[in-house]
């Protein structure tokens, strides 16, 4: 807690400066609302319960997108690492699919899947797929050659080598990929809602923009940031648990 004190003090100082600037500088609240009014708006959204359906929707999209993207990414990474022929065949296509700006696929996904949750989940999953695939592939290919020879010497088959050597060795790298994916999942879910959402934090931002309610937009920023930090910390916790199990340092 003591270690976090300076960064908390900095936050208070920044907020105080912002508040003073808004009050004394005569800035229009439409351009930059004062922190006090943002907090009041946020509290209003929480107290009336208007916030919850939006928060639930975005969190669900994020979790589903992250879950699907991570599992498929992990599986593809393993497949490409284990079968170099498949890797040579598919790698350019996988790369191309990731270089297409995925958010630009939003309108197409609305035609395919309709409005609602599905297009946003698909976009989020597509975004989360890549860091997991790339890190799994890298982690598995970097397994030390003499340890692989050891497993050959011990007569371990392909599956045993994967499960008992390659995946545990690659775990720290895979978990780093998962952390990156969490951050990207939030971007995917919020921006996905910009395009096709009716409910959700991203959709609420668009709604607030249409009535020029910048105070509400700022309040939603706070909620989105808090959601992201919460999920990031949750993944850190899981990561520490698993890594601790696998490698006491």
């Amino acid at each position, binding site marked *: 807690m003591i270690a976090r004190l300076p960064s908390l003090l900095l936050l208070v100082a920044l907020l105080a400066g912002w508040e003073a600037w808004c009050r004394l500088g005569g800035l229009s609240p439409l351009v930059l609302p004062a922190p006090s009014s943002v907090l009041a708006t946020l509290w209003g959204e929480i107290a009336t319960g208007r916030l919850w359906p939006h928060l639930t929707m975005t969190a669900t999209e994020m979790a589903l997108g992250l879950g699907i993207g991570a599992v498929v990414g992990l599986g593809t990474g393993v497949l490409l690492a284990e079968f170099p022929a498949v890797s040579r065949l598919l790698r350019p296509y996988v790369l191309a699919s990731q270089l297409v700006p995925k958010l630009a696929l939003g309108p197409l996904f609305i035609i395919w899947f309709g409005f609602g949750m599905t297009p946003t989940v698909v976009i989020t999953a597509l975004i989360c797929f890549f860091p997991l695939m790339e890190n799994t592939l890298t982690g598995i290919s970097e397994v030390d050659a*003499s340890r692989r020879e050891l497993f050959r*010497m*011990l007569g371990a088959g392909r599956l045993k080598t994967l499960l008992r050597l390659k995946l545990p060795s690659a775990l720290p790298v895979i978990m780093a990929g998962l952390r990156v994916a969490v951050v990207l999942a939030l971007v995917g879910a919020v921006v996905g809602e910009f395009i096709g959402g009716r409910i959700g934090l991203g959709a609420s931002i668009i709604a607030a923009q249409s009535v020029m309610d910048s105070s509400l937009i700022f309040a939603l920023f706070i909620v989105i940031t808090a959601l992201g930090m919460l999920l990031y910390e949750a993944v850190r916790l899981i990561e520490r648990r698993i890594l601790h199990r696998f*490698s006491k340092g």
Partner: protein
Amino acid sequence: MSTEQPKSGFVTIERASYRYDAAGPTVVDAIDWTIPRGEIHCLLGRSGCGKTTLLKLAAGLLMPSEGAIRIGDEALAGPSPRAGFVFQAPTLLDWLSALDNVLLPVSLKRRPTIADKDAALDLLERVGLADFAMRRPAELSGGQQSRVAVARALIGNPDLLLLDEPFAALDALTREELQDDLLRLCALNGTTALFVTHDIGEAVYLADTVAVMAAGRVTHVRRIELARPRHRDMRYAPGFIAACRALRDAMDGAATASRRPAA
């Protein structure tokens, strides 16, 4: 133990050659070698002379481009289940305890039984790590990690132990302790061993026979006529020093000979 007559070979290497690719240089060049059961042979040579490649051929990790390798009566067609291999680095799995690392060869095949665990603990005790069975590799010193690696190679009572400069990274005193441990463990079950090293003293201390390698060939062979069991004082005996001197001369001679223009 050290009769001059060649006994029937347990490990037989017959005109084995190895090239990484058909047009490439010959790393191991038509080597004939025989190790009688229960003997310890050392391959001595500078880096890049092909000694590690020859060891991997004997393990079945590499297949000879020409020639054949037999262990007992079987021709080798892949990694031999009868051989234990100790690598240059300890190659322990960081996420397993010392005990589980020793049990790895067993646990890859089946669930280890109480008897397996007792055997592993017994081996750990023999290499002086009885109190460290539950430690992870990161909590062990380099010497202790090497001891775990040796114990792991011995868990199934292999007929043949193959070692690739396993103690090269250790300090001189730890290295001598490990050499004594290794000799004791090999004597216990009459294990045959092929030991690769670039350290002349290590080769003489461990071996019944030392082969000097250069440019993929065996250039010099020397029987070591020191009594067994060997102990520390022998390192300063005239016979030991003379053997070291002769091997050093052989290595220098080999180096000059191999400095001929490359093919």
